[in-house]
């Protein structure tokens, strides 16, 4: 009884139109909108990250799709190249002479060596391959496009600058501190710092002028924790101080006000606002002059990098290609498909259509579910311990890679096949059984063909996952360095696309950053094609009952 009265009293007190109630409702709806905003923010964040991921890969990778090449006019002297054995000639010398021929004024071994650094070290091989393919050109003047070396490739594409900042941010900060003390000036084109020095007679007589100058210079940086700032003082400051003392011998033992020059980089920074030095990737300033000469003579071009697809791997980024990796991946996927497709379908048919419901089949199902979630690196350990050590299969070979990948793809195919089999309606089965088919005939002749599009879709998605797998391939050694595509087979050492990406990502040369990104774009392209085929199959052939 009391309960009723209290609740009645509460509801009586509760005025829905009161300002407090309105506020409450408002805040409740504000909360609702907040949650919605959080959701949008979360999705937006994920989308932005996806966008950054893709654009950064494109941004870093698009430059690798063109290669800077220089046109080399070569006279294929039949004295130097024997038409019977064109592959044996000294092409290094021929290329060298042809390229040096563009710059008759460059003399001296060191200069010439710097000049030759402009073209790729692979140029002689490119010329050799050209001559071997076109032996009728021997004795004629031919024009061959050879790639320039990596720094010039990057320079021409604008990836790396000719000059880089000479001073780091904290050095500039230190210098700013000095500038704000108003002691710097550039009276005659050279920045000097006005400072008070104590001309210690002992040091003067010992000739330690740089110690005097540094001692006095320290006064500008009372808070400095190290003595890095002494590099601001020019190398000739001590000499200038010495000259001052020699001109004013009476000042020794006294305090004098002198203006001492500061070093070149800081001098530039003070007068022009920036301090630049030549990019250390280039050997000398002359190389820019020579390279610009090539550009103005229209000898430099940037054609599409077919080499990326048709060259094998190389230590030089401008020559490195993916042919070995693509063929290795293709062979491994072929092996993977040949094993996992029939085995997966057969296993799935058994589990879905024939298996009795008992402990044995339960164990199999739990196993399949777990296999799908086992870390990929564990499959690599399995391949290493069993396929390589117990069975003695060759290391780095696509057959082992394919076998390991097939074990990883198997759960995907089995799950997809079971789903596809389940989707075939019972009417089909009953009709088949009704006209006298055996259970095997029913499954093989009627259910399986109808389930095939779904099975194929699942298989392609499984293979796409397998194409991107890296860790198991690393463990069985499928990251071999394959500099030629002549020796390819399922038992030969090979590399794969993702392991090639891993190897290139580890390489220090600047050109490999864009090569890696380009290789990733190629890999993502293959994945996109495979997924597109899967989606096409699903939409075109999969029947809804």
């Amino acid at each position: 009884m009391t309960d009723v009265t209290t609740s009645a009293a509460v509801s009586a007190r509760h005025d829905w139109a009161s300002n407090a109630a309105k506020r409450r409702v408002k805040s409740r709806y504000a909360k609702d909108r907040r949650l919605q905003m959080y959701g949008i923010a979360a999705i937006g964040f994920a989308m932005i990250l996806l966008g950054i991921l893709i654009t950064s890969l494109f941004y870093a990778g698009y430059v690798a799709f063109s290669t800077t090449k220089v046109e080399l006019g070569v006279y294929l002297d039949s004295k130097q190249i024997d038409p019977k054995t064109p592959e044996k000639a000294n092409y290094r010398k021929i290329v060298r002479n042809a390229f040096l021929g563009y710059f008759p004024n460059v003399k001296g071994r060191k200069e010439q060596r710097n000049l030759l650094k402009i073209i790729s070290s692979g140029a002689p091989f490119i010329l050799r391959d050209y001559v071997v393919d076109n032996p009728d050109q021997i004795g004629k003047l031919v024009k061959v496009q050879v790639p320039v070396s990596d720094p010039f490739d990057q320079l021409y594409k604008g990836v790396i600058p000719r000059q880089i900042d000479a001073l780091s941010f904290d050095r500039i900060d230190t210098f700013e501190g000095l500038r704000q003390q108003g002691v710097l000036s550039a009276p005659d084109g050279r920045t000097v710092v006005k400072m008070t020095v104590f001309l210690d007679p002992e040091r003067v007589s010992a000739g330690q002028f740089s110690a005097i100058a540094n001692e006095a210079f320290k006064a500008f940086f009372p808070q400095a924790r190290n003595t890095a700032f002494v590099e601001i003082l020019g190398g000739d400051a001590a000499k200038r101080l010495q000259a001052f003392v020699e001109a004013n011998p009476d000042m020794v033992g006294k305090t004098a006000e002198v203006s001492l020059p500061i070093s070149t980089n800081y001098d530039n920074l003070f007068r022009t606002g920036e301090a630049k030095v030549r990019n250390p990737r280039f050997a000398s300033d002359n190389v820019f002059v020579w390279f610009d000469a090539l550009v103005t003579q229209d000898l430099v071009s940037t054609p599409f990098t077919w080499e990326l697809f048709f060259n094998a791997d190389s230590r030089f980024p401008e020559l490195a290609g993916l042919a070995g990796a693509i063929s290795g991946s293709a062979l491994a996927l072929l092996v993977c498909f040949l094993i996992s497709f029939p085995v997966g379908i057969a296993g799935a048919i058994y589990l879905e259509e024939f298996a009795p419901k008992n402990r044995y089949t339960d164990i199999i199902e739990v196993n399949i579910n777990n296999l799908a979630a086992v870390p990929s690196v564990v499959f690599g350990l399995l391949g290493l311990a069993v396929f390589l050590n117990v069975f003695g299969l060759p290391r780095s070979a696509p057959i082992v890679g394919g076998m390991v990948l097939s074990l990883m793809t198997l759960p995907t195919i089995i799950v997809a096949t079971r789903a596809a089999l389940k989707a075939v309606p019972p009417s089909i089965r009953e009709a088949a059984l009704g006209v006298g088919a055996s259970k095997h005939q029913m499954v093989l002749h009627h259910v399986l063909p109808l389930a095939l599009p779904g099975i194929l879709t699942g298989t392609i998605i499984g293979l796409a996952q397998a194409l991107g797998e890296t860790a198991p391939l690393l463990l069985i050694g499928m990251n071999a360095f394959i500099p030629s595509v002549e020796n390819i087979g399922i038992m030969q050492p090979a590399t794969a696309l993702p392991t090639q990406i891993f190897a290139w990502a580890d390489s220090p040369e600047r050109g490999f950053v864009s090569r890696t990104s380009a290789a990733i774009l190629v890999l993502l392209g293959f994945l996109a094609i495979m997924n597109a085929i899967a989606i096409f199959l699903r939409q075109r052939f999969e029947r809804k009952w």
Partner: protein
Amino acid sequence: MFGYVLITLIALSLAGFVLGRQRALAAVSGTAANLHSLPNYHGYFIAAWVGVPALVLVLVWLLFQGSVIDVLLMRSLPADKIAGLSQSELALLISEVKSVAGGAIFGTPAAHVVEAAERYNAWQSIARWAMAAAAIALALVAMLIARARIAKDFRARQGVEHVMDGLMIFCSAIAILTTLGIVTSLAIEAYRFFQLVSPLQFFFGLNWEPQIAIRADQVTAGGAFGAIPVYVGTLLIAFIAMAVATPIGLLSAIYLTEYASPKVRAVVKPLLEILAGIPTVVYGFFAVLVVAPAMRNFGQAIGFDIAPNSALAAGGVMGIMLIPFISSLSDDAIAAVPQSLRDGSYGLGATKSETIISVLLPAALPGIMGGILLAVSRAIGETMIVVMAAGIIASLTLNPFEPVTTVTVQIVTLLIGDTEFDNPKTLAAFALGLVLFLVTLCLNVIALRIVQKYREQYD
């Protein structure tokens, strides 16, 4: 040779098919209707008996031929030449013999190597011919036996279906064989490791420096195999990854199931799936190329030192990878909550957010937890991102701005380019692999249990 044997076997199977068909038809003088099974089944019956056993023989032979010949070769080497050689030197000798046998001769190999190479070649060719002879003989014998059984009343269809059943059972059992293979191979190598290094040190030691053990004559030749820093690093990176992925994945799942219009859902869901389809090596490169330098620059701008291979960069990128995983599993869990619960909540006057927080999330919690556990298991087992973006040195720290290492990084770095199986350095990788496998297995089993149990509630 294998190719020729294969072609011969296929040809024999085809011949068996034709033979079976003809013999069956001959048995009923051409009236197929009098046969118990269709004539083709008689053909399939013989073909299966010809092909399957011989093919199994060939495959088993090929799998073990290499190891058997290696053992024979090792035994045949003169005892005085291999006395005192370590296992790796022996392996080197064997590979030298093989390369000499393959015709790749550098310098002048020792006389016993040349002899061994000749023996090796001889054994190889004997093995090949023996395999071909055995396989073809087996096929022919099987053909004769199977042929003798063909008769008017022979139940050929059942025979073929039995063979098919056997093959299908074998195929479905490959999953079990794989699991068994993983467990036994990891356990055997880990056992060998624990004979060299005490399990106590491995599980509770605080110092992990396995790389020192490369050479036997070095001062600290034993190496240090205390894996606690490795576990801590793994958990730290997994924690960071989950801290990124869980809120984002969960919130986007809530938005997509409860707020988003079908149109938005149709666009956003596939986009999120793209994140799941990107290979992990790409995420690793992304971490190295973009995320780590960005974090470093940000740290410098606010006067804070962040290592280029910090746990934060690796964990953060791993978190991005896990977003779609958590999102889709939570999505399934929330969508599976019956409409009646939603309607009940709305009927009481709750707003959408109140319904989600007080009704849907508690109801979907088991499913969401299962998804999170699966994601944790993924984060622990993820390899390429950490191999590329995390550190190699195992330092015992919980500071996310410092580089740490993980179990998977150690497995890969310990095994890349090195296949000697007699030192603790390589065996340690298998011990780590065993731990990794068992931990992820437990997480998966628990997660799958939770998910399944929860599903039954509303079915």
